[in-house]
């Protein structure tokens, strides 16, 4: 049986929300999420989605993504170093085994890691609960073994979900999900256990959407990032907003794009005094510690909360 509404969060009008202030009185929490993904050469089929647009092996698609890890990642890391910004990595956990050099370099820089599934060619569609638990447990353990840290964020592989995905990650004490796109501020999610925050990530300014789906030029992407930032910073004066730039080195680090993209970072970095340049986990932690109860109270006061939990209405 399918449902019309996920019931994962309640309606919360953007107008008149109680004020959020980020640490240091900052108006906007800014984070960058490089997706460091591993796409398999000969992935097994999933009944609901083809792994590659062409039959395996899809040489251009595969090798461009590998280029992202061999060449592009290192360019992007240099660029973020230049602006003293840390990445929050949306990690294909399998990459830990394939390319530990990338993990080490990110760890040295105190970048955050969160799980983006095992491979970006293995989808959640059709998994039973035990299989989905195995992916989550593998993610936690593999990342912990490689970095010493417990991961706190989740973005389902290739944005493929089941009805239980968010309940499961909440149960495993994840702090935030990047899977939902309904807001520019964090919001508590209605999971059966845990304390899971819906973290603004973004498809609208995600480089996969802008470069590949919309087909926009490097300059247009930069213009959009600057306008997006300016609007959210202005609104952050009333109540703190979140802006994420989700990136993929195989796209943004292309030689014809990276220096144009840098103009957007330069613009954002010039507003350092007003913004909190941070990571996904730090935003989630601050929200959970400071604004969780305030948000729930305001949502409840709007009189339209529906009760129940995700995919289980009251």
């Amino acid at each position, binding site marked *: 049986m399918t449902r019309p509404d996920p019931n994962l969060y309640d309606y919360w009008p953007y107008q008149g929300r109680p004020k959020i202030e980020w640490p240091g009185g900052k108006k906007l929490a800014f984070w960058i999420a490089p997706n460091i993904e591993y796409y398999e050469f000969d992935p097994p089929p999933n009944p609901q989605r083809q792994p590659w647009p062409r039959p395996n092996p899809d040489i251009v698609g595969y090798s461009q993504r590998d280029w992202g890890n061999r060449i592009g990642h290192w360019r992007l890391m240099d660029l973020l170093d230049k602006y003293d910004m840390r990445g929050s990595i949306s990690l294909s956990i399998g990459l830990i085994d394939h390319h530990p050099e990338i993990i080490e370099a990110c760890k040295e820089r105190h970048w955050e890691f969160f799980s983006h599934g095992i491979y970006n060619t293995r989808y959640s569609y059709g998994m039973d609960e035990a299989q989905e638990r195995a992916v989550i447990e593998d993610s936690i353990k593999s990342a912990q073994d490689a970095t010493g840290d417990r991961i706190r964020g989740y973005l389902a592989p290739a944005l493929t979900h*089941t009805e239980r995905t968010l309940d499961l990650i909440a149960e495993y004490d994840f702090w935030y999900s990047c899977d939902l796109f309904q807001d520019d501020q964090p919001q508590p999610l209605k999971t059966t256990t845990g304390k899971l925050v819906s973290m603004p990530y973004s498809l609208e300014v995600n480089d996969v959407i802008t470069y590949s789906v919309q087909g926009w030029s490097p300059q247009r992407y930069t213009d*959009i990032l600057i306008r997006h930032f*300016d609007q959210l910073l202005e609104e952050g004066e009333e109540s703190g907003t979140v802006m994420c730039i989700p990136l993929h080195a195989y796209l943004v680090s292309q030689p014809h794009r990276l220096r144009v993209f840098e103009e957007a970072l330069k613009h954002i970095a010039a507003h350092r005094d007003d913004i909190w340049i941070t990571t996904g986990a730090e935003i989630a932690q601050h929200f959970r510690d400071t604004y969780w109860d305030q948000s729930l109270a305001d949502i409840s006061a709007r009189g339209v909360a529906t009760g129940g939990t995700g995919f289980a209405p009251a």
Partner: protein
Amino acid sequence: MPLPEDYLTYPHRSHGMDQDLYYWDPADRRAPVQLASGAKAMATIVVPLEFFPLNPPGEPFKHPGAMKTPYPDLRHFTTRDYGNRVGVYRLLRALDAAGLKATFAVNAEIARRYPPLIEAIRAAGHEIAAHGVSTAHIHHAGLSGAEELALIENTRKAFPEARTWMSPARNQSFKTMDLIRQAGFDICLDWEMDQRPPPMRTKAGPVHALPLMNELGDFKLLLDRSQSEDEWADQILEAARFHVDEHEQRGAQCFAFTLTPYAAGQPFRMHAVRRILEGLASMEGLTVATATDTVDAFSEGTT
């Protein structure tokens, strides 16, 4: 096997239209209309507020904004929902700043789910138009009369006072116009055959068709055609200026365009929204008004 013989017979082949919903009335054979206000042209902003369920039936086709990936497509559900909880409040604020009133075309399902949004729209003095039950309830010729009547009655219950109707995905059956007029709607945003709001014939009386230009649609231009925000804004402002300039030759004309909250209400598009609204508000000879005020102004116009 050739086509049947009647494939080459043309029963409606005569002067005028091949249907009875309205008559043929070419632009250069009619008297120009002058509006009592003295406005040379009118523009109407239509803000659709739509509910996109996770499990759309896809009958008789998938709504252009419907889910795209396998169930549960949380990605598209939440991307659309962004408009109803965040984007629309940005549009309300921008309309207020420009001093303009719009027509919000609302699914009954949105009114049921999000009463605070409906209150905010009413409190700001905008028009609320009925936009069917939801994007999963498309009117089409495959529905029985009773099925379509039920859709319209359910929508009417959510909007007892609305005069303006817009069908989900602007799709109709052959009976829709009769049924909406019988339910008391006398303005419709589905048809765009004219540059005035001409009366259409139904069994229950006239319904005025205010032209909502699909070629100016924000979803179409910004998402389907990937045009830039500046190109989009320029085209809307040019359409308005064109009608002001054509007034001398053709009299008063009108057009409507959409501001879709999940598209236009994105942070990086608000600069273009503000430019459109300020440009229209300050344009000499142009009046921006709701669908009902525009239709009433033309009904009271003189030739």
